[in-house]
Each structure stands twice: as C-alpha cells, then as structure tokens.
C-alpha cells in the first residue's frame, strides 16, 4: 500500500486523526533528533528539543496550510527551537566544544576522522553550518532549504560551496 504523504497525514490530523500525527512523528523523530544532535552535541537536550518540536506540531498543527510542503514547515519549527537554544548558550563556549559520540562497539568508525569532521563543521559560520546540516545530513533539496532559511536558492548553494571549501582546508590532512 502506498505511503501517505506528509501533507495528507497533516490533513487527517487536522480532522482529528491522532494516529496520523503518530505516523508523522515516527517518520521524522530520528531525523529531527539528529538535526539537533549534530549542532548541540548533547543527547538529552536534543531529545528534549525534538519533543518540543512535536508538541508544537500537536498544539499548532491546525495552522499548517496543507497546500504547502510539510518538510520545510517542520524544519522551520526545528530551526527556531535550535536558534533559541543557541542564543541561551551564547556565553557558554564550553558547551559547544563537547563533542561526545557513542557508537555501538560493533560498528567500525574512523573516530579521528569523524571527530575532525564534527570539529570542522562546528567551526563554520552559523549560516554555512545550517546549510551543511540541512543538505548533507537532512537530505533536503536546495528549494526546501531556501524556504526554511528564508533566502534565495542561489544563496543556499553559495553558502554550501563556501562551507565545503572551508571544510576542504580543515580536513586536508585526512584527504587521500
């Protein structure tokens, strides 16, 4: 059976179908969680913010216009939560430097490279970092990212290219 689109699910949720909301949550919870985790480096906080995002959708889902795409709307909510959190931590430089990752022991990971990647992305200007996270890790299209960030597509592409150029410099020693 064909999977219902996000917009169809939201329409059903707006009509009182709470199972539709649960489906939306199951579909996006992991991605939204990792969206926060990659920028905040705190498992508990990222879970809390993920909860906040879905609670907001539950409370204010009626305001979503089902003729629009759901994903950019969802990530706009997530981005607002993230920016609020980062503002609170503006003076807490130490927090941003905690880059702790726990991987299951059976997965082979080049830890040094991953830490280098995380550090390099963390050091990007926030405008470039936002684009990298949304494109590289959240798999959004340039058009969707432009909607989330409220800027032209060309700006998104330009920021991403500048980010990759910076990452290339920082990760130089790990290149073949």
């Amino acid at each position, binding site marked *: 059976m064909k999977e219902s689109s996000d917009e169809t699910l939201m329409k059903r949720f707006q009509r009182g179908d709470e199972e539709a909301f649960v489906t939306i949550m199951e579909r996006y*919870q992991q991605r939204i969680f990792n969206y926060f985790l990659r920028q905040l480096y705190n498992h508990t906080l990222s879970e809390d913010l993920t909860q906040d995002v879905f*609670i907001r959708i*539950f409370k204010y889902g009626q305001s979503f216009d089902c003729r629009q795409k759901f994903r950019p709307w969802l990530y706009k909510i997530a981005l607002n939560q993230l920016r609020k959190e980062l503002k609170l931590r503006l003076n807490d430089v130490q927090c941003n430097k905690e880059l702790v990752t726990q991987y299951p022991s059976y997965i082979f990971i080049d830890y040094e*490279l*991953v830490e280098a990647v995380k550090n390099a992305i963390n050091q990007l200007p926030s405008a470039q970092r936002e684009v990298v996270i949304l494109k590289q890790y959240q798999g959004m299209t340039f058009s969707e990212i432009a909607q989330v960030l409220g800027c032209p597509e060309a700006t998104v592409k330009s920021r991403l290219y500048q980010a990759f150029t910076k990452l290339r410099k920082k*990760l130089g020693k790990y290149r073949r």
Partner: protein
Amino acid sequence: MKCKQVKSSLISYLFGECPRETTPLIEKHLVKCPKCQQEMDSLVEIKEMCGQWSEQPLSSKFLQNMLLKTKPDILTPEELALYLRIPIDEIMASLENIPHIEIGKYIRFKRKSIMEWIETIEHKPLKTIEELELAWHTSENRIKNMLM
C-alpha cells in the same frame, strides 16, 4: 560550458540537483578539464568524509514519552514512572503520598492531579535573608540535638 559556469554548478551537480539539460554539458566539460575535475573530486571527497558522521539512535522510550505528553489524562503506574523518570518500585513504595485512584486491583493516576501534587512538593529556593537565617538556625538546632 566554460570553467566559471561549471564551477558555479558543481555543488548542484554534486547533490544531483542539476537541471537535466545541464548535466551532460558539465560531464563533457569535466572530461576535458583537469582543473574542474580536480575541484569536483575534492568536493566528492569532502561529501564522503562528512558522510562518515552517521546518525545516532533516538532512545526507544521517546515515542512512548511523546504519546504520554500528547494524550490525555489517566496514567498507569508504568506510564507515571516513565513520565517522572523514576523506577516503578519507587512509585509503588510512595503510593500513599501520591494522589491516585483505585479501581478494583488497578491503580491509576490523573495527570492533572499529579502535576498539582508535584507543585506542592517542589523545593522552592529561599527568598529572604530572614528565611535564610531561619533555615540556618533550624539546621544548627538539628545538629545540636543530634550531638546531645
């Protein structure tokens, strides 16, 4: 296509978002231009390196917790334990202090009553010098009594 045009399209090409008619033109240029090919190769390498940073799993209780927060109103002991993030044994041991409903052999809790109860037992910070002094004297007396 010229190098400048190709360079400005490489990021779209890297992520497979080039217009259909542009892709063969870029590919034709890359075959002939080592400089642009090198640029492309380096972008691919960075993308692959970034891909090493894989996703972390969300806790298995997340969905359950979310459903508790978005659904009404009556909680089982297990749901309350999850909500308060304490072991269920603690809930059952402290049952006489927690507002609850007994229906036959079943124990249930009203979310609203639990929230009100939490307000009453929450330790609030002391506000005035007088309250601080009173707390100090109370502690001092308690220690003296213990030593007697």
